[in-house]
């Protein structure tokens, strides 16, 4: 059975031998192109997401495959995997997070600069997975807000790519004012983050 991920359930016909992604909407004429600032910023951001891998177990191994030449996350503008939270845009939490590890995940998230996104990869990061145990955090959304959840135990690299494209989608369409909004502040406050 085909796995239900974006690339096999939505059929995208190839229009030309080299298919180009459509740019943002705007006015074009000879020698100029005018569009909204937010679209340009979104375009720039979504194609240069620097991931911070927070890999604690087997999902991390799948992530290594994802970064390597075969699946090649670099195609999506994420060549630069950074291990410094200050330089990163996307926190990828991969693997079981024990309760003792929870404050560290939160600290790493706090050290990242806005705008920042979070991807929870695999059953354990999303919900605790099979570890319904006193020692394991039942999903990282108990300590930090999560943008995209990738199901699987562990997910295949294609599934993570699918999740990554969902993040790109979110990043590209995000309003420039979202992070100053009351609603966003409320969300942060619900996690005890100022």
């Amino acid at each position, binding site marked *: 059975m085909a796995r239900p991920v974006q690339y096999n359930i939505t059929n995208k016909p190839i229009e030309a031998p080299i298919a180009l992604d459509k740019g943002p909407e705007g006015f074009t004429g000879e020698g100029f192109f005018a569009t909204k600032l937010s679209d340009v910023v979104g375009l720039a951001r979504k194609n240069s997401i620097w991931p911070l891998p927070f890999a604690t177990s087997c999902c991390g191994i799948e992530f290594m495959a994802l970064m390597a030449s075969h699946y090649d996350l670099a195609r999506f503008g994420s060549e630069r995997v950074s291990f410094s939270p200050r330089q990163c845009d996307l926190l990828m939490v991969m693997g079981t997070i024990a*309760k003792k590890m929870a404050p560290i995940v939160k600290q790493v998230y706090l050290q990242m600069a806005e705008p920042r996104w979070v991807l929870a990869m695999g059953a354990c990061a999303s919900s*605790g997975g099979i570890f319904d*145990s006193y020692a*394991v955090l*039942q999903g990282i959304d108990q300590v930090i807000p999560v943008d995209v959840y990738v199901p699987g135990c562990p997910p295949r690299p294609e599934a993570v790519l699918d999740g990554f494209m969902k993040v790109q989608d979110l990043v590209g369409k995000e309003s420039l004012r979202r992070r100053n909004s009351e609603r966003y502040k409320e969300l942060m406050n619900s996690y005890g983050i100022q």
Partner: protein
Amino acid sequence: MSLSNETIRQCLTEKFGEDIYDWGEPYGMLTFTSHKDLNLKILQFLFDDSALQFRFLTDLCAVHYPERKGEELAVVYHLHNLIENIRIRFKVFTPIEKADVFSTTALYASANWMERETYDFYGINFIGHPNLVRILNADEMDYFPMRKEYPLEEQTRIDKDDEMFGRD
């Protein structure tokens, strides 16, 4: 000279007599029990005696037997004689209300880590341990999770369907 289970048993009976009981040999490993106040004396004897020389503490852990009233918690020592390559198992029992057992850190340095772990999971108070605080679990945990009165599963979840986990 080769050390056998019989010789070890003989040596111990000569020295401690009736204080060591419940002798057994599951899977060929000599196992015995004693009073918890005697644990240091017996371990010291096993360590020092020129014939026995059990100088390596392989493992130290606890077991919770809720049905054994008055001696719910067992502390189990696994000892190894590295010269003769022979292993023994030594148990002491303690009531759960006052789970005080003497620490063997002075005798075996490796007991330091293992006693902290045993304290962490079973709440056994090792008297004389230099730093008896939690080691594996989160510091703010307020119970001893491997005791059988506590459920293994995370209790804060409400969205996990018990049926899906084979529970009712």
